[in-house]
């Protein structure tokens, strides 16, 4: 089970980030939150998810099995990069 978490965890965090950020942004826009507040909330969430996406990477490095250590490290790096890239628009685009 721990193996699966290490292998899939990074991208599970990416999926959770996707759903949460997309939903928060849509809700904020729909309810007419002030721009600055919405952006601050989104940035705080993004920072949280970026940190969270590093956890599976750390788990993978402690795994005893060489196959899983290497494969899970690769997916972990890819997932962290995906979190940073996919949601970078939050930093510079108008939220609504």
């Amino acid at each position, binding site marked *: 089970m721990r193996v699966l978490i290490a292998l899939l965890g990074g991208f599970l965090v*990416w999926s959770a980030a996707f759903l949460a950020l997309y939903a928060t942004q849509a809700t904020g826009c729909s309810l007419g939150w002030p721009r600055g507040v919405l952006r601050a909330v989104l940035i705080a969430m993004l920072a949280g998810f970026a940190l969270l996406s590093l956890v599976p990477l750390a788990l993978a490095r402690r795994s005893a099995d060489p196959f*899983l250590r290497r*494969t899970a490290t690769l997916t972990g790096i890819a997932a962290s990069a*995906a979190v940073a890239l*996919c949601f970078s*628009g939050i930093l510079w685009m108008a939220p609504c």
Partner: protein
Amino acid sequence: MTPIERHHALERIWGTGPGLQRLSAVNHTIMGRRFMIAALVFFAIGGILAMLIRTQLASAESPFMEAETYAQVFTMHGVVMMFLFAIPFFEGLAMYLLPKMLGARDMAFPRLSAYGFWCYAFGGATLVVALLLGVAPNAGWFLYPPLSSATFTPGIQSDIWLLGITFVEISAMSAAVEIVVTILKLRGAGMSLDRLPIFAWYMLIVGGMMLVGFPPLILGSLLLEAERAFGLPFFDPLRGGDPLLWQHLFWLFGHPEVYIIFLPAAGVLSTVIPVFSGTQLAGYRVVVAALVAMAFLSFGLWVHHMYTTGIPHLSLSFFSISSALVALPTAVQVFAWLGTMGTGRPRLSIPMLHVFGFFFVFVCGGLSGVMLAMVPFDMQVHDTHFVVAHLHYVLVGGFVFPMMAGAYYWLPHICGRMPVHQMSQAAFWTIFAGFNLTFLHMHLTGLLGMTRRSYRYSDPLWEVLNLVSSIGGFVTTIGFALLALDLVLLMRFGRPFRRNPWGAGTLEWTTPTPPPSYAFGAIPVIDRRADRLEVERMGADLAAGRGLLATPRGELETLGVDPITGAPRQIIFLPHPTYLPLWSALATMGVFAGMLFKVYPLAIAFAALTVGLLLCWTRGRKAPGVLDAGMGLSLPQHRSSDDPPSLWAIRLLVVADATAFASLLFGAGFLWMSAPGWPPEDPVRIGGILALPFLANAALMVLARGWAAVALQAAVLAGLAAALMRVGDATAHAAPATVMAVLSFAAVHAGIGLILGAVALRGFGRDGAIAATWHRYAGLSGMLAALFPPALSLLTGAPA
């Protein structure tokens, strides 16, 4: 026991009888072949429809077809190719190959394969009959409302799509469960996760993607059918619904679907290329990591089909970047294949020719895909023939060419004969030239502004381009006819061979060809990665019984292993041939027919019959405790093990079901935020009655066994029924309609829980654990469902 005696003994146990008894077949070799043959028949039908389209478009102002006929023809071309050809074909390939590649004697749930096949065959046949009768779906293969709503498409045409496709998708869901459980549990001894043949990794990922990819489509279909049949306005903007909800649900399925189709084909390439390069796949680990990345990223980009629907730029950027990012893991695989060929010595045999066809066509399709991922460019070519060209490059390049490579590679295994190389080259080049002639300059047709689905035009430049496309289309057809002829000749007159003609290192080539029904005389013991095996030596060993479970005992036995380490854990008994799947599928068809013709009492009667028949499947004999597995090993029978395949199946079903439930909640949230006409004038007031199902569901999560669970499910059902009575007029506005949908969803789950709980009381084997898994999930989702109506009234500004 000599190999011949073992063969006869096993064949008596595993074989399917002749004549009408073939309808009772559950064996994976037979099912795999049936799926593939049926899919090819549908491919031919879809191809004929494509020819009709190209004839219509060959000249401007063509009098060939009426607009209505044309609408049915292009809708059915898409429906047939996506739902009745591509998915079932790779399901068939997986069913045929996976057990043989993994070292198992069959799939985990053979009767489920058979049930899925019949559902697919009956559903597909319904669609084709509708086409012949002139009442085929005509609203485009993605059936966008409001065009497909009752107002604009009265009659049964859209219902045939919604119900027929849902019926066919039963086979996709059952195949997904089967594929994942088979790969995780049914393998040779010692085949740990890092020793899986690469094709199994691909199919494991695809199976997982299907489990979460199809439920949104099935949910959307049910909601749209509820709107058409009962007037619940989920997609009607005049009553608080939103047609965009359909687009979200459809593409939430539809984009992952592209990768669900591409990955099995890529798995074929990763298997075939190393063999013909005389080396191993470069970067096995990197490819597995790329697969994981792709599986997730491909879900985060469905909105790239909806760039022009007015979504805020920030959220568009999420989808646009994911759409571009998903090209990276794809590129990783392409480089792995190129690297494999670079380090080895590629032999240019027929499968490799098709691999080269794949490289050229798919890379072109991938590049135009990255172009389309960019929002401004997509705005320009949205819904034009540029998109049509792109999708054919991706799907034909990414599925048809690799599968033709696979066909030449594995057909010798299926029929025991080798290609004779007469027509194969000519067929390939005709298809390749014809395909590019049809679609390459269709990019230009699109850039010039010709929209997809248009059935006549007047611009003379478009006429030249379209005529060339039509000529190309007919050349392609001639190529496919040559290919079909070549394959038939191969099967009839091919050169017989003994074992492993290509020098492969995977287990399926250790079986005799054509393969016997039991696949392996003994279950192999694996000591290295399962695509570097000594096939010749192992083949002789297994036939001679050097392996596990070599002594026939009268049962259909295969080995169950630990999913991670591949250590033997249990002996799995598989079912004998039975007509139950056929009867169950016929009863299920009755349910859909009742709904199609709106005779609901009939549908309910057939639903009861279906449930009854499905319950017959589980009538278990008493399981023996511990059995001798050979080679000095004793293992428990799967029913007395604490980790049987059926428990995995129910967990996977819960994952799929939870996806459907999450999609439903997403849909409700989407309507509340985006649909016009919210908040409703008349808020939904249900009152305190929901406290009963909430508390009963909470209790279920603790008391998930025995009589307590049955009583709690009954209480949930009663509470929900009372609450449903108070919803009010669900046809008036989408708010009461979504409340109705969420509560009905919970009620269906409580009903299933009631049946499972009652069955578990009879106390067969692991039924208790299976029912408990369901009760806990139903409890959790039911609590959320009970909270939904008050939450919605709070959000719409009216306390419950």
